[in-house]
């Protein structure tokens, strides 16, 4: 189960497991983002390469307009995946 929605404090809240079966939902939401935004991963348990692809595609699109994604409350396991993938160098990431 994966969910993504705008939170009360302006951040985008991601919940559950972002796997390849949930990509369409995640991509559709991210395609609507036009400015710099913060993703709250506090309740995101898991992400696979399919989810990483969504983040990368969005970051590249935003960068063309001088904007960027920030990702906060990242758990240790997802942070390891970011490190393996080199995402810690191309995203502003804050650990839990």
């Amino acid at each position, binding site marked *: *189960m994966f969910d993504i929605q705008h939170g009360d404090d302006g951040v985008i809240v991601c919940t559950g*497991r972002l*796997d*390849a*079966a949930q990509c369409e939902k995640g991509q559709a939401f991210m395609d609507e983002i036009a400015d710099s935004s913060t993703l709250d991963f506090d309740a995101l348990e*898991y992400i*696979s*390469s*399919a989810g*990483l*692809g*969504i983040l*990368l*595609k969005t*970051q*590249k699109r935003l*960068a063309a307009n001088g904007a960027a994604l920030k990702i906060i409350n990242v758990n*240790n*396991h997802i942070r390891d*995946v970011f490190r*393996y*993938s*080199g995402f810690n*160098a*191309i995203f502003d990431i804050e650990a839990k």
Partner: protein
Amino acid sequence: MEKAFARSNDSLTAIYEFAESILAANEVSDAARFSVHLALEELFVNMVKYNPEAVSDIDLDVSATANKVTVTLTEYGVAEFDVTVPKKVDVNAPLEERTPGGLGVYLIQNLADSLEYEYGDGQSRVTFTKESGI
């Protein structure tokens, strides 16, 4: 324990629940469970993606001991796709040079403690292991 899953990304939730029940019952560490689920998904999705003409289910065998988790995926009527061939991804490339895709096999090769591939008569089998971390 072995179970067959339909060749579709829609099977991923059922695959997660099947594998998780075995890993939890054997008290596999959280870190090892995350890695096993990730490598398992990447392998399954790869099989679905690169053999779209295949129709047979994909067999999944998951076992866990105090020392290690062993996962085997077997598919039938498919072309050869050796996931053990080293995947080169420049993870230090700047954003403008990065392209989505290609990370799946790279992650499998980095997360698994061992990775083996067998192919013959249209049957493709991948086995990986991960220390249980108990």
